[in-house]
């Protein structure tokens, strides 16, 4: 067993790695391609950054391709993203044309790789049309929907489903997100990589330096939300919860730590709104971090007392998993994939309002024993359910099942 596999076995157990080896043995040498629309920023890129090397380590010839486009393409895909999450947005013909042309241009570049691949996973809606643009494909193609598509805006879903319906299968994080499609829809939640800079153990000095770097007072409690500046992440709701908490816990500090993804054009506008709402409160720390600030986020999660993810819609919420892995209870919006992770009153609390979040923050700060016990449970819950080894096992199982179906 290689050093990398040994490292996974130490965290996830020998059985977890042995299962991956058993599943990958028949796929050795096969060409496997992942395609998404950004190499940095956002959960999909973070997953692929670690999953692709692990797959190669297991002997599967795996590559990661990224499509790119101009502003209009990203405007279109951001609108589609919002529409899949329920916003009744109208997308103009002009933007849809940019979407189709961008995919067509990318297909011209990627076609040789994709048509030659044995297995392809297309991540999210941006590259979804690639399947129809690769008519001589020989492999199994699966569409992965990472977002909360439980109530998509019908005109947009109808448009997208013409591209999605011909895949061999698709997979979603939760059953609530599944759609009417003519193929099997698997349920595979995402995961974190315990060995990544974002989640690995850190030296105490590295953790301690974070207080100084961001002018945080180590003697006072810290609440943290890590997320892109996106309305669905409800950063303004977090500020409201902080202000409510401040009334009874005046020493509380809030850190909002986010960055941008290259495929998210709305981020700057939301960041302005967040800065306006924070005003000149010196205890609100709004951080705009570069995409590679993984260790910084890791340290921020470790120095925080409570982590929030007060999203209004959330496909999964990897920041929830990350915080739980560091033994922190999470106060999360009662929505989407957060419900899968925050087991109410066990690994954290589910809330529907800023008032609910403020209540639970105060409850946990007043009961350190409970806070510690919930954090312990949260970490074990992640170990059992949301590590990369489980995630990859399920993806390899999916393709094994598709292969077996072809043989019978």
């Amino acid at each position, binding site marked *: 067993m290689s050093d990398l596999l040994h490292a996974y076995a130490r965290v996830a157990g020998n059985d977890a790695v042995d299962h991956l080896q058993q599943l990958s043995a028949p796929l050795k040498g096969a060409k496997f391609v992942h395609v998404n629309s950004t190499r940095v920023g956002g959960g999909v890129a973070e997953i692929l950054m670690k999953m692709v090397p692990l797959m190669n380590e297991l002997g599967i010839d795996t590559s990661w391709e990224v499509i790119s486009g101009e502003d209009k393409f990203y405007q279109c895909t951001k609108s589609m993203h919002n529409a899949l999450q329920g916003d009744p947005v109208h997308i103009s013909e002009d933007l849809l044309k940019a979407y189709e042309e961008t995919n067509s241009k990318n297909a011209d570049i990627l076609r040789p790789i994709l048509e030659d691949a044995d297995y392809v996973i297309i991540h999210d809606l941006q590259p979804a049309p690639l399947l129809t643009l690769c008519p001589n494909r020989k492999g199994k193609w699966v569409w992965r929907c990472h977002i909360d598509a439980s109530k998509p805006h019908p005109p947009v879903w109808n448009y997208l489903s013409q591209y999605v319906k011909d895949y061999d299968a698709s997979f979603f994080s939760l*059953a609530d997100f599944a759609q009417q499609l003519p193929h099997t829809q698997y*349920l595979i939640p995402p995961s974190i990589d315990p060995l990544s800079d974002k989640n690995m153990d850190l030296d105490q000095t590295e953790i301690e330096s974070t207080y100084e770097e961001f002018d945080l007072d180590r003697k006072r409690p810290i609440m943290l939300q890590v997320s892109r500046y996106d309305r669905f992440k409800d950063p303004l709701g977090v500020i409201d919860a902080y202000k409510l908490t401040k009334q009874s816990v005046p020493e509380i500090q809030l850190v909002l730590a986010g960055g941008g993804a290259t495929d998210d054009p709305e981020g700057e506008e939301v960041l302005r709104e967040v800065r306006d709402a924070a005003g000149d409160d010196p205890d609100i720390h709004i951080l705009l971090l570069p995409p590679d600030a993984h260790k910084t986020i890791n340290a921020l999660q470790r120095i925080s007392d409570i982590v929030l993810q007060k999203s209004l819609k959330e496909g999964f919420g990897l920041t929830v998993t990350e915080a739980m892995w560091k033994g922190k209870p999470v106060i999360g919006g009662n929505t989407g994939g957060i419900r899968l992770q925050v087991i109410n009153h066990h690994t954290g609390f589910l809330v529907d309002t800023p008032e609910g979040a403020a209540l639970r923050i105060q409850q946990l700060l007043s009961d350190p024993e409970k806070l510690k016990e919930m954090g312990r449970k949260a970490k074990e819950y992640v170990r059992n359910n949301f590590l990369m080894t489980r995630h990859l096992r399920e993806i390899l199982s999916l393709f094994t099942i598709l292969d077996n179906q072809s043989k019978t």
Partner: protein
Amino acid sequence: MPPKNENIQTFNIKDCAILNMATGVRAKNLKELRDQLLTIHPESILYHFWAKKLRSSFEEPEYNNDFASWTYSNLHDIKLAERLSLINPGMFSDIEDLRRKLIEVVELSLEENKSSINTKEGEQFQFIRSEIVVFDTKHTISKPEELMELLPNLSLGSIYFHFIDSKIRSDDISSWLSLFGDEDKGLTQQISKLDPYFFTLSELRIKVSQIFKGYFEGVKK
């Protein structure tokens, strides 16, 4: 203990995991649950009785199947949750009889309570199916005593595979044990009769270990 039958083969201990699939079938209230139960794929019914055991949980399961848990958590109907939880799938040799029993219990509740609560968005009952993925543990045993030694450390996936999934389909362990003739008949009967429905997988592992240990200690005396 030597086998009575010279042709007895070794027994391979397996591990397993399940891969869930959405059926796209949902119910937001009791009436819809009844309607969907009429036609849902039988594998989905089995899933909602058994797969719960493979999911990690923080508390003792108050109710033993997903139908009962959903009724309790989302419809707040304790009476129905208790009635549904009492339905033991092991008592039904035909899955269609199990389906009929479920529908009967739900319909009784519908008759008693004319009003039907609608669940909130995200709290609907989602009918799920699963595929089982089987792994080789590389543990191969040639006699029942060896299984006794391994049992306390077997993974919960192995326990699920051999004492729940296989039991529903082929009962591979009992079949293998029965090849050892009369001397192990008591053991075969005890394992065969063991009803896993009311146990968590950890409890089931302890229970099976106790049966093996008790049997072989008795044999030595």
